């Protein structure tokens, strides 16, 4: 046998030798062939999605950026105003309530409105008050109702001066029930300035330092006010009351959706809302 013979033998036998490949091989090959076509398309989609996302985020940031800055400025202005106004006279306290509410409304109220509110004339607050019930959510009103409870403790103490605040406190709950009232009440307020003012101040001034007043209510007729409320039945200890007060303050802030408000301004907010509702049923 010549060496070339074996070459020929193998060639003849194996040249056209074609074992049947398993079926799954075509599936594998198809998988390997398909991605080559799909990949560029997928990359295009991904790139387009990323660009769109960047555009949306960028646009949102550009549009919202200035507003946020303005809001912060408003808040800063609000926090500065109340302490001064409180000491000066009664009407400013009313006005102090207005900014806090507008702020809690979280409406994109322009700085113009705030400016009008900040001005000492009684008329602008009226506008703000009338606006508030329309836009303010019921949850906010509820929050206000809760916050009145610590302030309520102040009323018995201040009842020495006049009985008006007590009535105001007693009538607070109806005011909450009817959203229309606050709109009406502030309109009547300026006319009865001398009448209401002392009572309001008495109620508002002590509410700044909440803790002191809470102690008094615990021992004094303030208990009846709590009984009326019903919800807050617990008044066993000072600690509980303090905790409640703290929670309510927190509720006000959260329900009012004004997260940006610094904690320093919280007590002022409470007094402001108390006043607004104390004045509501009074006339």
């Amino acid at each position, binding site marked *: 046998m010549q060496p070339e013979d074996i070459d020929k033998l193998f060639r003849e036998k*194996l040249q056209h030798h074609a074992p049947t490949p398993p079926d799954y*091989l075509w599936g594998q*090959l*198809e998988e390997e062939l398909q991605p080559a076509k799909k990949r560029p398309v997928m990359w295009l989609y991904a790139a387009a999605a990323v660009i769109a996302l960047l555009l949306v985020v960028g646009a949102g940031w550009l549009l919202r950026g200035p507003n946020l800055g303005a809001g912060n400025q408003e808040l800063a202005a609000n926090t500065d105003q109340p302490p001064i106004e409180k000491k000066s006279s009664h009407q400013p306290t009313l006005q102090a309530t207005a900014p806090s509410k507008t702020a809690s409304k979280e409406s994109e109220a322009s700085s113009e409105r705030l400016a009008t509110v900040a001005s000492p004339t009684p008329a602008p607050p009226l506008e703000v008050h009338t606006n508030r019930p329309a836009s303010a959510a019921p949850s906010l009103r509820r929050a206000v109702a809760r916050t009145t409870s610590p302030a309520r403790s102040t009323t018995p103490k201040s009842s020495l001066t006049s009985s008006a605040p007590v009535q105001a406190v007693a009538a607070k709950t109806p005011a909450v029930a009817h959203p229309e009232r606050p709109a009406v009440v502030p309109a009547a307020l300026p006319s009865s300035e001398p009448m209401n003012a002392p009572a309001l101040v008495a109620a508002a001034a002590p509410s700044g330092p909440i803790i002191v007043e809470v102690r008094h209510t615990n021992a004094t007729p303030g208990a009846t006010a709590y009984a009326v409320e019903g919800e807050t039945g617990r008044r066993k200890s000072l600690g509980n009351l303090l905790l409640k007060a703290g929670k309510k303050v927190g509720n006000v802030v959260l329900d009012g959706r004004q997260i940006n408000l610094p904690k320093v301004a919280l007590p002022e907010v409470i007094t402001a809302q108390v006043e607004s509702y104390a004045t509501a049923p009074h006339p």
Partner: protein
Amino acid sequence: MTEADLIAACRQGSGRAQKLLYEQFAGLMLGVCMRYLRHREDAEATMLGGFVKVFRALDQYRHEGSFEGWIRRIMVNEALGQLRRKEPLHLAIDDYPTDLAITPADAESQLNAADMMAVLAELPAGYRTVFNLYALEGYSHPEIAELLGISEGTSKSQLSKARAMLQRRLAAANAQASGSTSSPKEFYATGRY
């Protein structure tokens, strides 16, 4: 559908045409790959890789020479690459006697293709590769030397050693096959008596 039409359809990305082309050549190319690679799964993977290259490089096919030859060359190159990864070519090994066993030429006719493949697979990778390239693919020694990165002389000596070993193995396999399964009539026909 002619081969040219099939190629054109494959170039346009028709999945159906690709499958037709694959089915037309898959068996044959699996046979080619199995001659180079000892393990079936390696041969299948090589064939797949070869077909991927065939479909990607289809635009470069100029219709010069047979399409089957073009695919076959791609497969052989793929097999050589796979071989370097899987079975390093021990081309320098020279521990086999080179003398050719003298056996009747018609004795091997009893072996079928699968037996021949088995015999081929037993060869060391270097022998097998050179023998495949020279005897079955028709490459010349200079071409083989260039493909494998060896000298021409090495290619020649590898080929002769591969032939000798194959002949011995074939004789052994043939004796085994004839001794165990062949009938007396076949013995007579093969001239053993």
